């Protein structure tokens, strides 16, 4: 579904990504882990089009995304839930969700999408008239996720949904992500610092370091890999 080949991105002369290649199959759950500055966030931005690629190719359903703007990529069914939540703080919860279904293909199914999202996150129904900025961190993360789902995407890019959240909320978020995947057959690309939880969810995983893929494999293989164990699992 998504094929990335030789992707390179630089910021002000700093190489954030150097020749990254990876594949995500239809309906697959892929997790990307790695230390700070490895380029994980940049990779998601390059897919959604908010960071310009310097070299390489990003193809979605066989179509080269290179020339497309972020809004055009979103219209193809790619939803990006960015790091740090980025909800629209001075809009209400409901307005945030409605903006999620701005995409033409999603407008028709808005009511149904709304039902589904509010079913996944009942707390958002309770708070639908509240300003998004007044929600707690966990609720904002749910809203960001819900806003992404309102676009009825085929590919969901999740950037560190657990950041800054308490342990119980983190469990809840991961459970919901798992449920979305099982119920909606969504393709998901997840970037995470919580390595164990994130790898346990995935089919395939990649380890990114200083802008390169240093390790890739199926879930069981990665969790059992001695290097992963040593570097990330504290074993």
């Amino acid at each position, binding site marked *: 579904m998504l094929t990335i080949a030789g992707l390179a991105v630089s910021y002000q*002369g700093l190489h954030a990504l150097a020749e990254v290649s990876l594949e995500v199959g239809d309906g697959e759950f892929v997790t990307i882990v790695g230390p700070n*500055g490895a380029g994980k966030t940049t990779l998601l931005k390059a897919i959604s089009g908010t960071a310009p690629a310097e070299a390489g190719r990003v193809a979605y359903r066989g179509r080269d995304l290179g020339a497309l703007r972020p809004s055009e990529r979103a219209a193809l069914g790619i939803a990006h839930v960015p790091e740090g939540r980025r909800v629209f703080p001075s809009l209400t919860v409901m307005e945030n969700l409605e903006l999620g279904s701005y995409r033409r293909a999603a407008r028709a199914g808005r009511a149904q999408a709304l039902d589904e999202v509010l079913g996944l996150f009942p707390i958002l129904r309770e708070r639908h008239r509240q300003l998004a900025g007044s929600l707690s961190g966990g609720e904002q993360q749910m809203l960001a996720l819900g806003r992404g789902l309102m676009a009825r995407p085929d590919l969901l890019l999740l950037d560190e949904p657990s950041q800054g959240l*308490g342990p119980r909320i983190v469990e809840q978020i991961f459970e919901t992500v798992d449920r979305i995947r099982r119920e909606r057959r969504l393709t998901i690309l997840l970037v995470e610092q919580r390595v164990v939880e994130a790898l346990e969810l995935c089919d395939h995983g990649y380890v990114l370091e200083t802008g390169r893929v240093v390790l890739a494999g199926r879930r069981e293989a990665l969790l059992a890999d001695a290097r992963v164990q040593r570097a990330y699992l504290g074993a």
Partner: protein
Amino acid sequence: MASRGRGWLAIVAVVAVGVALTLLVQERYHHRVLTLVFLWAAMGLAWNIISGYAGQISFGHQVFFGIGAYVTVLLVVKAGLTPWIGMGVAVAVAVLAAVLIGMPTFRLAGIYFGLATLAYPLIFRIVMDWLGYQEVAIPMKREQPGWFMQFNEPRSFDLLALGVLAATLVLSRVIETSRLGYRLRAIKENEQAAEAMGVDSFRCKMAAYMLSAAPAAVVGAVYIHAILFIVTPEAVFGLLVISQTLVVCLVGGSGTLWGPLVGAALMVPVSEILDTTVGDRLPGIQGVVYGAALMLIMLGAPEGLYWRVRHAFRARGGGEATRLAIVAPPAEDGAAAVPTETVLLEVRGVSKAFIGLQALSDISFDVREREILGVIGPNGAGKTTLFNVLNGFLVPDRGEVRFLGQAVTGLRPSALCRRGIGRTFQVPRTFQHLTVLENVMVGAFVRVGPVHVAASTARSALAKVGLADRADALPTGLTTLDLRLMELARCLATAPRLVLLDEPLAGLSGDGVAVMISVIRGVRTRGVTVVIIEHTMQALLRLADRLIVLDQGRRLAAGAPGQVTQDPAVIEAYLGKRWLARMAAR
């Protein structure tokens, strides 16, 4: 920033070029253009002090220009006082006006400040009309032309205007390279972070406003004598004055002393040439051409020509390579790593409500010296609100905070920082256009005045967190770990007794967490007390001596980490049963 010597040399070079042009130019009209270039450059520089450096956009700066003109001319008319002395009086009046205007107006932030400044020139126009000063002409003083600034020789006006420009350049340069300059830039980038680092933003903004009023008044006084000869409210308090000032700064670039100079050197001759060439044949067309030229420049260099050229040079210099290795954290020795019995901070019955939400209810606890106290609880429990009360961003509705035995409830963040309370933020709040070193220097200025001393304090703070090799980088190129380390270094540079760390591990990977833990332990080893909000429980359990748990604004539990994590109420509200199972499995 260019080295110190080079900056002064450049100013000397500008003055030399100005003198050379004055001597070279022959025609009277060309002298007039030259005088105008110097005066508008100086006026742009005056505006740049408050709006460029401090970021407080003033749309009413012509109020000081007008005060300069009116006060000087009225003193000539009414008292026969020479404008050379009258200008001094005008400067004093303008600075006083800046204080009176600033007092109420600096309570407004951002665009609201700018909009409010629009009102003052309007008020002055009405007052001048009402006083009957619709038209005040400078009386001719043929017997003492020099004493009354009524030169026959146009070169004299060139040199006078150049003198005003040179003085304003020197003033700008002194501000740029001083403690005030760093503080103003910090306020422009992030006023809250600057306050938390001990910058009294109100006083700094006021100082900048007063310093920018003075040259504007001088320019107004000289402009009247060199160009207008008759003062009217429209001519000196009108919109044309501020729009010319803004054009000069926007075209050249603001926040640097070279921007207004470049802008004036380009736009003033363009506008004059248009007036005399096409304007003669098609009246009004000059405004259209001028506007088009302005739009072209804005499209090509939206941040101003100076910055455009500078960035182009920077980019050609090439970037740096990615930093590969994470710097080894400094070694710690266990000697001082034990809490003492002294109570450093007492929190007593603190409550804080927002509209419809009780964020904190009746919170009490002590922090002992050299302790690492962890604050945990679900999102929205009031942890950050608690920090905002402790460092002065918020005033509690009820309750008291005592630091080192003294009541500090309700003090400003900058005052609390000076007393020794430092903090970092959940999302790092950096000064984006300052280098890493300059960011940390802003913290150091709380204790030291001279720039070079602050720089060395900042370097040693950077070394303490292992970030010495990034001193000259800009924050935009930094990883999350480096940003958090930089913020901690900035906080340490204020020489705090107590640091409040708001989720310092958020967004860090496993090895980043290890570095940060080691650095935080190092902070405590040096005798600094730490209060830390964190969700990364494994890390916090390794770090904290004691935990306090908040839930829905209340204190749910407090005690040793082992005991708190077994508390059924804490598991129910925050940790979750699965977390406990995971911990047991390790």
